[in-house]
């Protein structure tokens, strides 16, 4: 209890910065790296720089982790993974709905929806399992094709007689 009370009374960097730091660290590094920075903050920066400048130092360190993650591609990887999961779900949902409603031309639209879902699945495979050049090239070409489908769909929707949004 005494240790816990001492920890509660000890100076800490701003909570928002600590939370942001944890967000950008890998699970295995969260405790160790945040501990290193806390140790430096309490033992070195706070006594020598004062509260405001020590907090600014901590802010700079957090930014350095954000920048590093961006450079290493980790942020992009997470964003791409999230987008791919969403696209797979959307593709499956669209294909199922098209087949339930069966409006004219549903076959083609189902094929497009399935293609987009498969394309996203392939991208997920490249992210997590395989990064061979051949598969990456196929996935990249598929992505370009999917993007062309998307752009065409936007133009066709905008020019349609009955604009449905």
């Amino acid at each position, binding site marked *: 209890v005494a240790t816990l009370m001492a920890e509660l009374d000890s100076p800490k960097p701003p909570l928002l910065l600590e939370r942001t730091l944890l967000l950008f660290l890998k699970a295995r590094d969260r405790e160790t790296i945040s501990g290193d*920075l806390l140790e430096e903050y309490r033992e070195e920066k706070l006594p020598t720089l004062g509260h405001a400048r020590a907090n600014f130092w901590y802010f700079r360190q957090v930014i350095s982790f954000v920048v*590093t993650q961006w450079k290493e591609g980790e942020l992009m990887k997470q964003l791409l993974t999230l987008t791919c999961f969403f696209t797979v779900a959307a593709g499956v949902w669209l294909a199922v709905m098209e087949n339930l409603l069966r409006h004219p031309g549903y076959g083609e639209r189902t094929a497009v929806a399935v293609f987009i879902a498969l394309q996203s699945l392939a991208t997920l495979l490249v992210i997590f399992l395989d990064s061979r050049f051949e598969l990456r090239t196929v996935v990249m070409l598929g992505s370009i094709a999917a993007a062309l489908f998307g752009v065409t769909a936007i133009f066709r929707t905008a020019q349609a007689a009955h604009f449905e949004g």
Partner: protein
Amino acid sequence: LKESRTGNLALAIWTDSCLQCRQMADLLGAFEQAVLLVLVKLADQAYGRAILRQVQLSLGRDVAAGAVYATLDRLEKKGLVSSFVETGTPVRGGRSRRYYQVAAAGVQALNDSKSALEALWQGTKWPLSWQN
């Protein structure tokens, strides 16, 4: 025959330069070398905060923590460094410490980098002087 000899010579030069390129590509970057040398210096005291401070001292400039940890992570993935976790102290809120050690491959990489750099400079007068 003359053409064949020229071809062989060109092939030999090309192969040699490719080998050199590959060796250069395998070399450690300056920052990676700085981090590895700090690990050697700190020995069994090499944990995150100590490494960060020592790297700053070695390079004589402020270094962002993110850059040091990213380098340590990369070196560990390459198998040049290994790490283990130990319990933390109260000053760090009880959070554990990760200690780093240079692996045998890391020592080899440091030696190779130094040898390659020395070989590269061999026969060149130092310091270089610029002449217009």
